């Protein structure tokens, strides 16, 4: 990989399952050393995108690359440079924790057993316990430890905090931050937990119905996106038409407007008339809700799954 070349790149990737199109022209890149979050609702194509990236699925159109190598041409050596935490934290259930570490050490030349042992100790994982008897959180921690201890140049995590409660999630996040700190590893991870994403991600991409609708740095989002309430004076019910307006959500007598500030024309705002609220910096969760739900749906929960609600 040459300097400046992205660690991960999707170029107009299409993939369908039967009649259902899951990815529709996905294009984005993860820079070297960047922690990139891939967000989206259930079934929007996050796992498919990551499996395409790792060569476990082939795209029907387009191309993905990891460390400059096409996903369809990854050699075993290339795989040694990429860490992968699978959805559901796949590990052999019959292996004990220490056996998992020795298996990984024996099958990955770059694996740092000392680092893994320290992390296991730090997380207080019972070394003699079979994986099947570990809690979900412990399995997630172990998966992350073995993926990072292999000293990958790119780490791909498929919803590593899925199914974990708040405490476990926080612990996992701490482990992740500790393991990744000062290692310069590029990370691409999918997640539902937006507060976590906000904490560690440099950049987010939001997938919706197979399409990329947001690809931006987290700081940039905080600087540029504002929410304002607007109550029209003339009793108009139609949403306003403004440059830089991402979403207008109906609220009682007015609208909550999500606006991109650098595209916003103050004059246009003033011309709206009515009562305009003070600008507020939205959370990532607010933004996510705004861009991935249609106000006509009647609310985010209408199409969400149980998993999403519990998360």
């Amino acid at each position, binding site marked *: 990989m040459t300097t400046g070349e992205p660690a991960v790149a999707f170029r107009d990737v299409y993939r369908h399952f*039967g009649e259902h199109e899951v990815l529709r022209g996905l294009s984005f890149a993860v820079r070297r050393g960047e922690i990139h979050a891939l967000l989206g609702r259930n079934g929007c194509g996050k796992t498919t995108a990551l499996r395409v990236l790792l060569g476990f699925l082939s795209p029907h159109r387009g191309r993905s690359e990891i460390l400059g190598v096409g996903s369809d041409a990854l050699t*075993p050596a290339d795989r040694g440079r990429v860490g992968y935490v699978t959805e559901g934290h*796949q590990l052999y259930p019959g292996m004990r924790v220490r056996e998992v570490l020795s298996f990984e050490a024996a099958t990955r030349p770059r694996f740092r057993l000392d680092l893994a042992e320290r992390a296991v100790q730090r997380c207080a994982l019972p070394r003699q316990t079979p994986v099947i008897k570990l809690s979900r959180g412990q399995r997630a921690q172990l998966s992350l430890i073995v993926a990072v201890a292999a000293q990958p140049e790119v780490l791909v995590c498929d919803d590593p905090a899925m199914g974990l409660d708040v405490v476990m999630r926080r612990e996992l996040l701490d482990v992740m931050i500790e393991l990744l700190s000062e290692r310069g590893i590029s990370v691409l991870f999918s997640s539902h937990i937006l507060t976590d994403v906000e904490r560690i991600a440099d950049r987010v991409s939001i997938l919706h119905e197979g399409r990329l609708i947001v690809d931006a740095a987290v700081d940039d989002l905080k600087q540029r996106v504002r929410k304002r309430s607007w109550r029209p004076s003339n009793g108009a019910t139609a949403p306003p038409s403004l440059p830089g307006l991402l979403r207008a959500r109906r609220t009682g007598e007015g609208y909550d407007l999500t606006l991109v500030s650098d595209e916003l024309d103050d004059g246009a705002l003033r011309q709206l008339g009515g009562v305009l609220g003070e600008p507020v910096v939205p959370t990532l969760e607010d933004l996510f809700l705004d861009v991935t739900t249609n106000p006509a749906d009647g609310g985010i929960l209408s199409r969400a799954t149980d998993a999403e609600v519990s998360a």
Partner: protein
Amino acid sequence: MKALLRRDWASVSFFVATGCVAHTVLLASEGFDRVWVERDSELFGYFGLFYWIAAGAMGLALGLREDALQTRDYLLHRPISHARIFGARQVAAIGVLVAWALLPLASDYALAALHPNAPLIAEGRFFDLLANGAVALPSYAAGAFAAAFTRRANVLLLLAGAPYAALGLGMFGLRRVDPWATHPAMTTLGLLALAALLLLVTWRCESERDDADRPWSAARAWPAALVAVAAGGFVALLGLGELGSTLDQFLTRSYPRLVRIGDEPRFALAEYDADRGGPWLLDRQHRRGPNPGRDAERRRWVSIERDGALKAWWNEHSKPRRTRGVAWRDLGWGVEFGRAFFNADTGMVTVLREAERSSGRPAQVYRIGRGAEHAAFSARAFPLGRRWEEGVTVMDPKDATLWRCVLADSVPQFVPSPLPDGDRYREPLDLRELRDGIDGEPRALVAAVLARGDTPFAIRGERGSYLWNGTEFEPLPARLRAAAAELERTRARPTATITNRDPIVRELEVRDAQAVVVFEHTFTPQRLGERVLAAALLGHSLLRLPVAQVAALASATPHMAYEYWWRDGLLTGRKRAWLLVAHLAFAVALGWRCYRRLLRLGAPVSRCLGWAVLVGATGVLGWMLYRGVETRRAWHRPPVVQEPPRLLLRSA
């Protein structure tokens, strides 16, 4: 590789332990004699069945393990080539198979060496039994192939299991489980080659990701399809052979019987239908004629079918299995039992005194031959009588002498058993055959004799028949002589013979002692039941492989439906070309349909042609395979819709 093997340690240990225990239990249940002394091909079949089931299950389990544990991605995403991962699994599996064969056999052999009858252990038996384990390799490979061929529950599952089924049917259905009777090394090598081929194709299947939304690559599709279609073809032909055989039997039974009315040279077609007021005489179109009365006429009928030709004709369905080597007989020395093993290879008989075994002392083992000199019996010698029922008597055709095993000073010895008046042995006289072969009063007499507890043993000499009275042969009692004469007379009746070889149309002729044809009739389907069965026979033919049908029609020698499972008796002897034409037209239509559909789905022309040829050659079987592999979903391409980009927010 070592790490992968260590990973498999738990599952390997489980398989080794389970299989070894099962094999050990099998060996123990069979006992010393059957395992180490007797030469019984059924024993090999019994163990072969164990290997077939256990190894096939292991192949399937190991092949599907990563899917069951959902660890396939986790395993494959590491700096190890797929070949190494696949190889490690095969090494582990072969280790298990070797352990299954070797450990229980070695331990049982060690125990057998300490057995009082250890001298009886057949030379080379250990390696024969070990070689029997070679069956496990292709069974394992067939299981692995089934796992790799398809991981989806559709029609392919049937074909994925075809090599496994073919192996089982080949071994047990065709009774080819006694390979060491002929060329053990060649058979073992053949099994190993089959295993290697299956594993190679399994590797091809596994090296490609299973993706329902992509067509199989040619490198995966064609080898797998050819293996599946070859094995499936074998299974299908064997199954259809059985179906043809059954239909043929039903049709044969539905045709009228041929009877002779009393001793007159008068023959007729008849039907025994006692439930509907029969029997009936039938005309040449198989229509019912007069009912001659239930009893008076019936008593005068003699069913020709019992007289040889027709009986043999039907009984060809169950040809007796040939065995060779050791046969054993209960010596029947009153309370002192013994067992004898006749070895046709050496011409010697090994005798084991059971009474001494049961008392806990080591049994005396004797190897004896003819007379006090213990000369070897000739190569054509054979033991007489039935298992467990008569004493040990050996007939030596070299000089037409009979030798009976007796205890002389507590030592078993074969002594000549002369027939009265210097008669010479001709053949054994089976009293059961006598009982079953005659009607009327003599039959009841024989049945009464047979009902005695000591089950008499009789032979036929050149001048008369004789019965063993416990110490010597004596002429058959008068009443049994009459029965034997009746049987001779019955045998001398005119014989009915089917002169052609066709599953549907049967040409029957009856010749008298001077070979003059006294009756003939051509059986063709006339009644509804006969027509339905004939139509079913023709219909089953359409399910066979067209390529096999072409070969059948090319065969000049006609045969019955069931005689050769791979050739359709309806076509052999260059009959019913119209049936082949219809069959080929059907297959070509299927092939054409397959070609058009694939072309429509967007497959390359070479692929369309390949499938069309395969379907044309293998008919319904190939069509099933093609539909399983070439799904609409795999070739589905949604139309490319140029949509405006919907990126709401992007930053550098």
